[in-house]
Structures are given as C-alpha cells and as structure tokens.
C-alpha cells in the first residue's frame, strides 16, 4: 500500500437519525485513500476513524459489493450511484476522484422513499409494486421440461434486458418527479414479453401502475434521467412498452 499515492478528500455527508429528524450535512475528511479503494471501502475507512474517535459511523446500505444486488444507494455529487455509466456505488472506484476533491453524499430523495437513517432509505414501496402484479399466477403442475415452451432468442434477450433491473431505486432517485416508471416498466415488460406472463398482462399493468401511484411516486414527464441513473442500463423503451401495455389493457 505504501507504494500508492494517497488522497485526502472532503466529504459532505447527509446525517439523519431517523425519519422524523430534519437531518443535516456534516463535513468529514477521508485520509489515506488510494485509487484502488471502492467508494464504499473509502466510507469504511472514514467510519473506522469515526468509531475510533467515539463518534457515530455513517450508516449506509450495502450487501454484495460486486455490483449485482442493488442495495447500495447513494447520491454522489447529485448523481445516483455517482454518475458513472452502468455502475453501482460499490463498483465506483476512487480513481474517478482527485486528491483534494469535495464530495457530497446524500440518500435517495423521493417522497416514496422515507429516510431510515443517514444514507439508508426505506425502499419497500418497490416491493409493494411487485406485490401488486410482478408475478405470474398460473399453475405450474409437475416439473416442466426446460424446452416445453419454445421462446425465440431475440424475445428471450429482450425479456432479459428488462429483467436486469436489480430494484435499487436509482431511477426514482434520479427522476425529478420521484417517479418509479423505469422500475415498474422493467417488471411489467419482463413478464409481458414472455408467453408465461402474457395471460395476465392487462391486469398486471393496471395493478402495478396503480400501486405505483398509491405508494406516492410521481408521474413520468419523459426527462429520461432514470435511464442515465440506472446501473443496469435499463432503456426507456420499456416505459414506452408499458405505456403500450397500459393502452392495450384499457380494451382488454
């Protein structure tokens, strides 16, 4: 480690005890950070210093730390996940920053995502959208032959592109309206594209978009900030597809 140049950074971090606390920014110094640190490892270092000093560490969500779970949720300098293309916070590395940089770290900000503590928000509103129809309820019978339902490769690929969504909520955090259209459209599309999901497509899109509104998410105004924020590169074509599914559902 001694071979590496180290960085010293100024962090301006949102600290909030609970949902009712108004919260405020606190300034910290991150010392001895190398370019190989991930953003979360950098925060781990800061937290160690805070714990040694007898202070409350910065509370943040994380799990897999390999970019696939969607737990990490931080808005860094105004961009969800730090703004690097198709990257979650855990896969954002400190080589993207310079010695002496000042970094603002905030939680996802949306009406539907109440802050639990510091950088952790309650994303169970996304689960409520899934519960409203993000499944198929057909009887599966015995163990089916893997190739019993033939699905052309391009169709399977399209469904997979939608299924890449890890439900991190960056789309909501990036949307100026706090809308969950990209998330919901990915889930609606993933099922509507495949034969097993087509049967319930109409009720699904109605129920899931209703749940979206009931959970307090805003409405889509086609800014496409969601697509820029998405660490999995979910395209807004799925929002267009959901709009189509919604229109079709009105006549189903």
């Amino acid at each position, binding site marked *: 480690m001694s071979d590496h140049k180290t960085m010293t950074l100024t962090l*301006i971090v949102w600290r909030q005890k609970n949902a009712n606390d108004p919260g405020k*920014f606190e300034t910290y110094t991150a010392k001895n950070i190398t370019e190989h640190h991930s953003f979360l490892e950098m925060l781990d270092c800061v937290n160690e210093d805070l714990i040694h000093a007898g202070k409350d560490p910065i509370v943040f969500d994380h799990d897999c730390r390999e970019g696939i779970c969607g737990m990490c949720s931080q*808005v860094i*300098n*105004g*961009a969800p996940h730090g*703004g690097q293309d198709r990257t979650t916070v855990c896969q954002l590395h400190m080589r993207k920053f310079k010695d002496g940089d000042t970094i*603002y770290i*905030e939680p996802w*900000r*949306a*009406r*539907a995502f109440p802050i639990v503590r510091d950088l952790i928000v309650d994303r169970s509103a996304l689960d409520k959208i899934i519960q409203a129809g993000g499944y198929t309820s057909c009887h599966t019978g015995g163990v089916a032959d893997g190739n019993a339902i033939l699905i052309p490769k391009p169709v399977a690929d399209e469904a997979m592109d939608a299924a890449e969504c890890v439900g991190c909520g960056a789309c909501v955090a*990036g*949307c*100026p*309206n*706090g*809308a969950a259209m990209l998330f919901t459209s990915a889930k609606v599309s993933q099922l509507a594209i495949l034969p097993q999901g087509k049967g319930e497509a109409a009720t699904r899109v*109605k129920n899931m*978009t*209703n749940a*979206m*509104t009931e959970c*307090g*998410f*805003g*409405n*889509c*105004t*086609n*800014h*496409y*900030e969601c*697509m*820029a*924020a998405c660490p999995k590169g979910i*395209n*807004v*074509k799925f*929002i*267009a*597809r*959901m*709009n*189509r*599914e*919604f*229109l079709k559902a*009105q006549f189903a």
Partner: protein
Amino acid sequence: MQLTSSSIGRKILMAITGQAMVLFAVVHLLGNSSIFGWLNGGINAYAEHLHSMPLPIIIGFRLALLAIVCVHIWFGIQLTIENRGGRPQQYAVKSTQKATFASENMIWTGSLIALFLIYHLAHFTFQVISPETAALKNLVPLHNEMVPNVLGMVVAGFKNFFVSFIYAGAMVALFLHLSHGIQSFFQTMGWSCDKSQPLLVKFGTLVALGLFLGYVTIPLTIFAGILKG
C-alpha cells in the same frame, strides 16, 4: 378507461391534446404563410375563406380547440403539482444527465404560451388591442367584394417593436415547449423503441425549430420593412 385518474392515463391525455395543438400550429402556420403572397389575394383571401365556412363548423372547431386547451392546461397543472411533491427535498448538488432546460420548464413555457394565446386572440381574433386597425372595421376590395383587411391589421401590429418582440418571445417559449413535447408524445403513446427514441428527439426539435422559424419570419419581415401592407 382510467384516462382521467391514472398516472399513465393522464400522461396520454396530455400527449394527445398537446399533439392536436401541434397539428393546429402547423396548419395555422401554413395558412398564415399566405401573407407572403403564394395565395391569390394573400392572407385577406385566406381569412375570408375561413370566415365563409358554415357557422356551426367554425363554432364547433373553436369549441373543440378550447376543450383541448383546457384539458391540456388542467392536467398539466395537476400533474406538475403532484410531481413537485414526488421529491419534497432537493439534492444539495444538482446534476442532470438527460433532462434539458426545456423538459424541466414545461409548466413555465406552457404558462407563457397560454398568456400569449390570450393576447394573440385579443389582438387578431377579437381585435380589441388596437381597434383603429381592426380588420373587421377596415374593409378592402377583393375579387369584387369587400373583405376585412387582415393584412393591414397584421402589418400595422408588427410595425410596433413591442408587439413584434412579444410575438418573437412567445415563439421562443413555443420552441422550447415543443422541443420536449413532440418527442414526448411518441414515448407516451408507446410509439417508440430504443432505436427510434433518439431520432424522435431530433425530429421533435426539428419540427419545433421549423415552427419557430416559420412563425417569427412574419413579424421579422414586417418589422424590417421587407413585407409591406
């Protein structure tokens, strides 16, 4: 139908009413361009042609337009208020990747256009802004009959710097509004995919630019003295 209550339903209503007004703006510009003389008798003949249509058609058309405008404004305001609440606390650092000045200010460009619309109707339809040049009161001969002098009214209006300035400013608001609105229509109706979406953004901006240039040419050429009454 969940058109008036649901999130996507109201979005679709905004898109359809908006697009209807875009179509109106295109036809309106084509009609207005008769001021440059491609129609025998110019804009006076065009105005006379419109006014000679059966009254129920004229009234029906105006009522339909009014209804479209009202629906667009009503849901526009309603959705904007809801969406402002979607993110109650803003980020300390604002960083936008895809949103544009136009997409973020639809409510304001829309409000400017609505205010302009009131002025425009008072000026050229109800002709109360400068009654001395009102076309309905100043008849001129055309093809052996006396018709309102629309050309004289328009030229007299745009000779005034402030009038031309208001019109040009409103067209900037229209350009911004439509540069987001036209592509938004296709996305909302679901007539878009990953390949067509960036092209539709360009197409929308191009149509908005075309309308802007077309409309400002009229006050500009009159104010510069190129087009005379």
